[in-house]
């Protein structure tokens, strides 16, 4: 029946498929698996969409989506929060991963197991004021002083390179860099944000579109989210097959890394939420107010407008 539906959708292709594009945040990785699955398995076609997955490179997804050049994109709660404050009309339409899987990683030899161990160590970041605030928030829980951490801007340098030299710990996504470390057999200590602060349990990454799309083409958005949701559900149930699909589309990626990362991530997509993609207003409000309290936002965010669950399949 699968081939049947494929040829059927081919037929559809000629007449009524709607061309839309989705812009990734950077290079394809396991955060994007659901999209690749939905495309490969024809879920998008079933919904009447012809989806083009675009690697934006330096162009970045947010501006393209906001300006309507692309209908959908992969973004982050941090970005959308800051974007909306600046009047950029981005809206999050699904959380790809339910909880924040990022954290501060360090080689096991450095013995950094909790925020208080940051004292006297060197953090390598990209120079954003958010970093210091986050570290500070974590350290406050253990009554440690953030000013005793030396913060170095390491720019584009990757984690493994950085910790070879002056850096002791850095902020990573476990699903990718952490898994790579496992593959290399390097022992890492992780200090997850979610373990120390609820407010920092924000959604990263998310699928986003712009306000205009929601207003003018709600059907398209609905169709897109539905298919993506099917894709991610497939990835949750069949991580290995899903990984194969991503590898097949992107042969230049390291297959071992993709497989392992996919396995690690499978349970994290939906996690404790009632359905994949669900977002809570609390999470948006918490993080925005945390940012505001730390002087990282100029004004308060209207959290209700920043996201919506209404396109998620019931």
């Amino acid at each position, binding site marked *: 029946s699968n081939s049947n539906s494929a040829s059927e959708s081919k037929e559809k292709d000629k007449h009524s498929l709607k061309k839309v594009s989705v812009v990734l945040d950077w290079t394809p990785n396991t955060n994007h698996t659901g999209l690749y699955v939905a495309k490969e398995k024809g879920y998008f076609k079933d919904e009447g969409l012809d989806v083009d997955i675009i*690697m934006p490179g330096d162009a970045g997804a947010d501006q393209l989506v906001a300006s309507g*050049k692309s209908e959908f994109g992969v973004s982050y709660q941090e970005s959308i929060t800051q974007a909306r404050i600046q009047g950029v009309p981005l809206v999050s339409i699904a959380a790809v991963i339910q909880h924040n899987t990022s954290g501060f990683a360090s080689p096991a030899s450095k013995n950094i197991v909790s925020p208080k161990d940051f004292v006297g160590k060197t953090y390598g970041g990209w120079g954003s004021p958010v970093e210091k605030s986050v570290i500070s928030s974590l350290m406050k829980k253990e009554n440690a002083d953030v000013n005793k951490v030396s913060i170095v801007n390491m720019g584009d340098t990757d984690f493994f390179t950085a910790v070879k030299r002056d850096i002791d710990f850095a902020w990573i996504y476990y699903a990718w860099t952490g898994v790579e470390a496992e593959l290399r057999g390097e022992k890492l200590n992780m200090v997850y944000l979610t373990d120390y602060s609820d407010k920092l349990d924000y959604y990263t990454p998310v699928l986003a579109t712009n306000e205009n799309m929601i207003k003018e083409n709600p059907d398209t958005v609905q169709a897109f989210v539905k298919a993506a949701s099917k894709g991610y559900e497939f990835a949750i149930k069949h991580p290995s097959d899903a990984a194969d699909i991503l590898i097949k589309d992107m042969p*230049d990626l390291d297959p071992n890394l993709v497989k392992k990362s996919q396995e690690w991530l499978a349970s994290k997509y939906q996690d404790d939420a009632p359905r994949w993609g669900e977002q809570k207003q609390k999470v948006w409000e918490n993080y925005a107010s945390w940012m505001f309290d730390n002087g990282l936002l100029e004004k308060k965010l209207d959290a209700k407008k920043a996201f919506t669950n209404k396109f998620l399949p019931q």
Partner: protein
Amino acid sequence: MVKIIAKGWRPLTVLLLLFIVWETVAIKSGVPDWLLPTPTKIFYEGFNGWFNFYPNLLSTIKLSLLGFALGLLIGLLTAILLHLLPFIRESIYPLLIISQNIPIIVLAPLLVIWFGFGLLPKMIVITLVCFFPITVAALDGFKQTSNELKHYMIMAGASNKQLFWKLELPYALPSLFSGLKISATYSVMGAVISEWLGAKEGIGVYMTLASSSFRTDRVFVAIFAIVALSLLFFSIIVLIERWLVRWQLKGAK
């Protein structure tokens, strides 16, 4: 041609030596592969992954050739225009410099928003990279024209057009070729950068993918390809220069 091949062995030897030093140092000092793979590993990967890599290479070659050609055309036209219309030179020059100082990360979203993900925005990026050295070098070349010869040409009634084609352009050739060499060298990097504006294939795409999945050996395959292409383009320019400016070589003997 024989002479060129005969001369070619020297840089090749140097390259070979470099590889040998690299290999031994890498092995001796135990630099891990993911940081700096040895040349043998890189060549091995290049050989093995050739069929995956090949379309990327082709795509980048096409991009850089197109971009270089366009850069050459625009660079030369700009130089000629500014040379022949000195009163607009002062006004336009700052714009040229501005064009060289708009970071791609800022330009990229604008270009994509205006022109989509097609060929055009990429061409614009490569052209921006390539045209500037050509314009500056050509302009300075035109300016250097021997006064004595210019004097004769004008006295003999050369029109501005003739003065340009028969005297100033040939006189500027050596200088122009300086610019061409610089541009040819940049054109490949320009193409790679332009691929970061969202391309489906190309060395730039291959490289970022490899880099984000920590395949350092593939990153170096990409670099080798970039370098080899640049050397090739550069050599072609040098050959054309030898052929066009051979009177100078003859004189220098």
